[in-house]
């Protein structure tokens, strides 16, 4: 893997939605094998940014490249083929498909499906049940396993913890680290700010559509007042 080329790079990205821009001027580099945390209050524009990266909605201005290839003009399918995988907010399972069928949709190799089911024994037990009959945590495991078997280059993860009991979420979180260890670049949106910052190298705080902090995740973790100010959209919060 070529470190310099193998990055997800955003330059001056602005995303508009209905009335106007919901997030503006985001510049960011996600290198392979690292986690970048994106945190901020509700309605800050985190989901909108991820949706623009994966092609659910268009990027209004700015550029995005994956491994050097500009992607803002590409279709959703073409972006997926470049290895950009979006784990959507909520549980993006295909409810009528069984667990194995959900995985078959993205598996590069049939053997990968067995590997993924080994990581989640509870899924292995229910491999032929429709995904809609699984518990919330199990459904989120299906989504993670589906991402895993697609062998992604970059992962956009949107609030994996939503609606899950903390114990369940704590079981899923190590998967994120595991993805990173295997060289996947991850942009992690998470309400559990401290857990996200604990995994991340770089961190961004967005508030009301603007980046109010960008820098080392560790720094933010060690300075709660900095995080607090950034959440409130503090204009004087430092920008890297």
């Amino acid at each position, binding site marked *: 893997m070529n470190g310099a080329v193998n990055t997800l790079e955003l330059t001056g990205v602005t995303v508009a939605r209905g009335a106007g821009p919901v997030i503006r001027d985001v510049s960011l580099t996600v290198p392979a094998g690292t986690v970048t945390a994106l945190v901020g209050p509700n309605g800050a524009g985190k989901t909108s940014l991820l949706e623009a990266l*994966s092609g659910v909605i268009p990027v209004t201005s700015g550029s995005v490249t994956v491994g050097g290839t500009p992607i803002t003009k590409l279709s*959703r399918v073409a972006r997926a083929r470049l290895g950009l995988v979006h784990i959507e907010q909520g549980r993006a399972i295909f409810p009528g*498909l069984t667990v194995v*069928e959900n995985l078959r*949709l*993205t598996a590069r190799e049939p053997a990968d499906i067995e590997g993924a089911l080994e990581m989640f024994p509870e899924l292995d037990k229910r491999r032929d049940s429709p995904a809609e009959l699984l518990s919330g945590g199990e459904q989120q495991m299906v989504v993670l396993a589906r991402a895993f078997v*697609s062998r992604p280059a970059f992962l956009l993860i949107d609030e994996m913890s939503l609606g899950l009991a903390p114990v369940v979420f704590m079981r899923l979180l190590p998967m994120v680290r595991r993805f990173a260890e295997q060289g996947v670049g991850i942009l992690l949106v998470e309400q559990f700010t401290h857990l996200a910052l604990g995994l991340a190298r770089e961190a961004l705080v967005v508030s009301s559509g603007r980046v109010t902090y960008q820098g080392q995740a560790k720094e933010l973790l060690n300075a709660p007042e900095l995080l607090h100010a950034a959440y409130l959209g503090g204009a004087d919060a430092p920008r890297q």
Partner: protein
Amino acid sequence: MLQGALAGLAAGGLYAVLGVCLTLMSRLVRVVNFAQAATGMFGTYVAVWLVSDAGLPIWPAVAVGVVIGGSISALIGIIIGTWLPEADTGSRSAVTVAVLLFLISLSFILFGNRPQPFRPVLSGPAFQVSGVVISQVAIFTVVVAVLVALSAHVVLTKTSVGIRLRALSERPTTAELVGIPARTLSVAVWATTGAVGTLVVAIVAPTQSNDATALSMLVVPAAAAALLGGFRRLDLAVVGGLVLGVLQGAAAQLSQLSVARHFLPFLFIVGLLVWSQRKEVWDAAR
């Protein structure tokens, strides 16, 4: 009466195949395709013209008609996929009403409004059981209806294309995000249902009617058949089509009922709607 009922099997098989096509389209591409039978009619008219005016043998002519029916259908799919990709089922279906009217007018313009000189593709009795004749056409359409429903079921549950199609019908956006080529697959569904619909219309039409409007309106009994399966279940769509055909055939035998047979699909639809809403009515009444 039994003879009449069995004579209705050919029509029933036709309703069943078209009902299965309507069900597949409603499930997989979110459209109630009002132009389903009209597409078949148009492909069939082309085939008839190729035989009568261009002197082609019947089977190659039917093959060309089937390709044309599939292409027209694919074209509607491309149009809807391009301009109404995220629209609701109602707006998408409205496009097919326009296509229905367009195809009827186009066939009048191209082929005139006199009924076409159909030569039956299949004719004659297949066999006879205690004095009751079962025609080849009846056997053919019933077999095709069952085969189409079965193969659609197998494709949807066992093949990777089928799994992709189901994923696409459940969550179109997420499906694209996991790399499923939505446009291509949808157009393939349109083309396939268009081709299958044309094939059965070409083979059964000569025994039914040879009028463009009447053939296009076969979509009504087909919709009644699909409704029995709630536009979801393929097996019930087949049953619905066959039952409707047999009932119509039996009614045609009784002189008092022979006019009523034309209203049967309508009564069938109303009856099913009332039946399917019975719980709601009960709840609302409380």
